[in-house]
């Protein structure tokens, strides 16, 4: 499941931030490495919620800084 979730996370990130998937790794930081602005952070949460049909706590979600931790965060919601 981990790889599947990670792949979907990367696809969502690429689609939302309009960047190539190849640029995105689990270590990628949303702001510093992928250039996400604060508004896009909220957009990412919305996209993750839709993709995985989950309801994320905004405060906890906005604390997530990398693609890898986002994957782990979502996996916890899916468990």
């Amino acid at each position, binding site marked *: 499941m981990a790889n599947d979730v990670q792949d979907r996370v990367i696809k969502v990130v690429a689609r939302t931030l309009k960047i190539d998937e190849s640029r995105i790794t689990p270590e990628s930081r949303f702001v510093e490495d992928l250039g996400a602005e604060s*508004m896009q952070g*909220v957009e990412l949460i*919305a996209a993750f919620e839709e993709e995985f049909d989950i309801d994320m706590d905004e405060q906890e979600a906005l604390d997530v800084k990398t693609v890898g931790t986002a994957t782990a965060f979502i996996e916890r919601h899916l468990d």
Partner: protein
Amino acid sequence: MSGKREGEPSAEPAFGDIPKPGANSSRLLSFQRTNKPLDSNEKNHHIPKTNMTTTHRPLTEQELATLTSQGCQCDDWSAVQVADGFLAERVRHATFSGEIRLGRNEGSVRCEGGVERRCGIDHAHLHNVTLGDNVRVANIGVHLANYDVGSGTTIENVGLLETRPGACFGNGVEIEPLNEGGGREVILFNRLDSQFAHLLCLHRYRTGLTDALVAMAKAEAAKVVSDRGTIGRGARLMNVKSIIDVCLGDAVIVDGAASLLDGTVLSSPDAPTLIGTDVQAENFIIAEGSKVTGGAMVSKSFVGQGCQIGRQFSSEGSVFFANCEGFHGEACSVFAGPYTVTHHKSTLLIAGYFSFYNAGSGTNQSNHLYKLGPVHEGKLERGCKTGSFSYMMWPCRVGPFSVVLGKHTRTFDTSDFPFSYIEASPEGRCMLTPGFNFTTVGTVRDGAKWPARDRRQGDVRRDRLCFDVLSPLTVGRMIRGSERMKELQEKTDRAVETVTIGGAEMKRVMLRSAQKTYRTAINLYLLEQVVARLEDAGQKGGASPAEALAVSPKAVLDEQWVDIGGQLLPKARLDALCEAVEKEGANGFDTLCRLLDEAFDHYAEDQWAWVCWAYERVHGEQLAALDQPALVKLVDDWAKTKEKFLKLVLLDAGKEFDPVVQTGFGQDGTGEDAGADFSAVRGTLEGNSFVNKVNDEIAGVAGHAEAIKKLL
């Protein structure tokens, strides 16, 4: 000399009763932050009056001899009368013509730097003038004509000061705010307030009301028409080139102004008004406690109470109500509701309605599409901000507490989407993110700062202001906005990337999350209102929860609320008010003031009726039907929602200390120096007073909830 300091306003009224300071009835409650105006009958006191009551007598032969020996001239000395206590030796090189009445002049006035100067007249031509007691008039270039001058006033180094026959003093001037092309004219008069101006300017669809308001404004304006102007008590006019057809209130300071033409400066000892260096003003009214300084150019404009206009700001055809600030930039045909603030050069506000607004540098709008003229208009509802070099092509309407960024070249209406971020796409399309501004530090700070920064002083406060950020207005809009987004979400395919709503584009995935944000905001407001009621009743004792939650029979319930120039009220109450006023026509001004005051007084009752209605609509159950366990759960829900909200605000505050915003700090140092430099300049998150306040509030929420539950 009397015991009081000379030059200060006399304690004895010479121009009518002046109410004592400290009699204002402003109130700031945690759940109802409003600023209550005084009874409408009390609102006329600072308007200069022309009736002087001192008894005068003809000059004695000795006085006449002294005057002529000191270079004074007059064709008919019998027309010169003086009060007992008049000292002829203090009048030198004066020319008199027309009817002259001079008061006692044995005292002195205190000028800049604390220098005491003798009262009297020196090098001046007075024509049809009455001077109160202890007035100093010196070095009048042309003449001082057709004025009543209050006691303790100084007029020195003034080129020309005259009232011409039938002067209106800025009253009755018709200006064109909001729509530069006309059709929304506001008539200036001394008692104009933001509510009256709002109704006159914006409710043109109520033709009967418009006719009545126009008649009222004209009737009010007609009251001040006179061949004589007034300069109030304790006024100081220094180094002014010309003042023509201008009434000046008590304690006003006019220092270095270039030209004042056809206007009134309302002023009082407890709310003195300042007109400063190089100011040019024509066809204007400036209200109590305002400062118009620094070469400002004010033409066909109304400047309300506690405003600050300066640094070469120019205003034309605009109204500014309580606590507005205008520096450097330009306002043209602007309706600046309370707390409209523009500080920067290159900022043009044009043909717009604003309130509780902050303009970023270079903010600009267009009202002229080079077709039928400058006929377009726009509205930014209360609490909006525009970012640096933001641009909007009117017509647009921006919902409350929204932030506008970028260059917008398309029309949009986001009035059902408060607390939005409104960015422009590279093509100039509006990109809407509803609710994003709800949990920002800026919004929370704004809500606290406005009531704290009310500069209006003294007993007269004309504009009726409700400061609440969350109110039936904003929460009602969020309910409507949520419903619109839900409907759109349900009917839009997931493959669609963006949707259009109100002419704005929105990322489809945001439809769901924006509803979630609004849900939090709606709940926070409704639960907070209920909890406050329960707590209040519990602390007072005697009232059961059911009684505490009951709606007053005096309340007016309407789903729709309106914001008229800073006052919030149910639309139904406004409709009734308008109907009543229409019937009274020109005589209805006091009725209008009374009804607006009543609406203001009923704000809490009306709000509560709305909360009960909204709670049922949102939660599907009546508040009155909640039993004790349900109320306990409600209090718990409130605590959770409040804590969640405050934590999101903290998260936003944290962004201000993020390493990303430390970019550029630590000049010429190492990477470690950047952090140290940042801390030295900006402080730390842990040490920030706002953050600590929010943290304290979070820490107190659970205990607060427990205390309330014990009261149930």
